[in-house]
């Protein structure tokens, strides 16, 4: 390189080394739990569960202290479900995950060896301690007379729903609309698997595709997330109807203006199942398996179910919940993604991945 009297090359390397050390020091910190009497677990969740888990964590910490004498503190991480799953794939050390749809937890199994393939079989009800559904939020008095899915594509009705490519919640909306048409056309969704009715099923699927295409022609804005859509509808006054999670719709009505909005429950909707799981590799690494499993089981207890209902999630064991908390949930016929679309992997592949049905809608 060069030959000088002063060791310029040498001091250059010292500089690199010093800077490296400074970085190293700054990067340290954090880490370490499960020592002695205090345990810490991290629950990686999606956005609208903030309130629910705030209350539930307090209840569980108390319960755990009473039954084992150990203090447990639960850290929460909230965000879009897809983003949260990617964080775990990229190394966020979650002990438990409570996400919006099974597809995102499946992705963790696919990309890493953190959880086994049959993760969803380990807890009752497909590992979903609470469920929800998709409902309509309309402006007070329902000026456009929206009562069911068909009304969404009438005249100049403008529908607000987020982009299914970026929002988990939006995928439920989309699939709910699709399933509704199949239900209308076929009467009974069980015939979907009947090889003798294949022709009728194909016709119904085609009709569903046309309906959903028409539906998205009525969507003026595709927000990137469910909260963004709620804002667009509630704060910015766009659209006549918002397709929303039932719990989000309740929240909007109760917190933002009971005098401004009403909830309309369609005749048929989807059974939204937000699943939960322990992240095996991480709880074994942290030594937190026992408490993490107890944490998720507690969601199914009387207290856990009551808190779910209180936060507008439909509990899977309604018998454990006080009658008055159940009355807020109107009866609605719900179909599951597994029954109608053959599971999330298939639904994602066919509808939402690049080149899928949703992309076709916007093909110029």
């Amino acid at each position, binding site marked *: 390189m060069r030959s000088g009297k002063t060791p310029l090359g040498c001091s250059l390397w010292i500089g690199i080394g*010093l800077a490296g050390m400074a970085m190293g020091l700054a990067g340290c910190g954090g880490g370490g739990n499960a020592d002695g009497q205090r345990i810490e677990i991290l629950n990686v969740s999606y956005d609208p569960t903030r309130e629910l888990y705030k209350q539930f964590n307090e209840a569980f910490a108390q319960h755990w202290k009473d039954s084992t004498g150990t203090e447990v503190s639960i850290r929460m991480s909230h965000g879009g479900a897809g983003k949260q799953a990617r964080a775990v794939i990229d190394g966020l050390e979650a002990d438990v995950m409570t996400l919006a749809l099974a597809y995102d937890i499946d992705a963790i199994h696919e990309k890493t060896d953190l959880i086994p393939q049959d993760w969803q079989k380990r807890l009752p009800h497909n590992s979903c301690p609470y469920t929800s559904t998709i409902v309509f939020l309309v402006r007070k008095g329902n000026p456009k007379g929206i009562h069911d899915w068909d009304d969404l594509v009438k005249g100049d009705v403008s529908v607000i729903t987020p982009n299914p*490519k*970026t929002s988990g919640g939006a995928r439920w909306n989309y699939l709910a609309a699709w399933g509704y048409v199949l239900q209308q056309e076929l009467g009974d969704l069980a015939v979907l698997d009947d090889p003798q009715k294949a022709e009728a099923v194909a016709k119904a699927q085609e009709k569903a595709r046309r309906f959903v295409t028409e539906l998205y022609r009525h969507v003026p804005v*595709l927000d990137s997330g469910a909260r963004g859509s709620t804002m667009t509808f509630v704060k910015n*006054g*766009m659209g006549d109807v918002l397709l929303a999670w039932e719990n989000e719709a309740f929240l909007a009505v109760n917190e933002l203006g009971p005098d401004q909005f009403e909830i309309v429950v369609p005749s048929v909707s989807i059974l939204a199942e937000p699943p939960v799981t322990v992240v095996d590799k991480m709880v074994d690494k942290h030594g937190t398996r026992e408490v993490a499993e107890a944490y998720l089981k507690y969601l199914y207890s009387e207290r856990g179910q009551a808190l779910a209902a209180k936060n507008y999630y439909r509990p899977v064991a309604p018998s454990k919940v006080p009658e008055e908390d159940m009355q807020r949930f109107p009866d609605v016929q719900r179909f599951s993604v597994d029954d109608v679309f053959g599971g999330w992997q298939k639904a994602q592949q066919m509808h939402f991945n690049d080149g899928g049905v949703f992309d076709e809608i916007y093909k110029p």
Partner: protein
Amino acid sequence: MQIRVLQRSVLPGFGLTMGVTVFYLGLIVLLPLAALVLKSATVPWQQFWDTVCDPRVMASYRLSFGASLIAAAVNAVFGFIVAWVLVRYSFPGRKLVDAMVDLPFALPTAVSGIALTALYAPGGWLGRWLTPLGIPAAYCRLGVVIALTFIGMPFVVRTLQPALEDLDPELEEAAASLGASRLQTFRRVLLPGILPALLTGFALAFARGLGEYGSVVFIAGNMPMKTEIAPLLIITKLEQYDYAGATAIAVVMLSASFLLLLAINMLQWWSRRHSE
């Protein structure tokens, strides 16, 4: 490079500081970018090509680059005026106005996005006047430009201010006394002196606009082919766990913006030399 190293500087500490610089730039800038390029290199060429040439992706490039250019240009004009006023005149509340310039820097971008959308939505304070005029501001391309103008403004003002302060008012007086018209003074005396700084500000605002995601997704409406920005398509790919596709789009954006920034830098060197 060799020549530079061989030239002895009178300032001590070159080796040490250069070492820190190399390490720091390497860690903060080059390493992540190298990881990005490496990741995209795992994609078969055909798939890479199909991803980045998809009509929807192309439309998003056009929007991202177009809107960023327009926003940077708007900022270059109005940012110049703001900087001029702040430097040349003293008026009550000047310090306050000066501090306000930095606000778009400090505000979380999602907050600016939500605020702008609330303002320009058809029912918003400004939107309700614009909509009857047939100018939809939110949820269309204009909205993207508005958001990018907002976040890019401080870059132009802040880079122009020191340049304007350095500019001696006597030069203008001399020009005027020698019979130059105001326009001539501006074109022949003022502009050459501040052009490098103006170009830097323009380039910074433009680059910032290209990468902006947080505020734009709220106001854009995100309709495919119409108001989808390239960063949003990257997020869309990530939502499908399509890391390769996301990096492919990113690499194209990166290369294109590097070329554009390089071109602006060249222009700057040229203008600096030209004015000397």
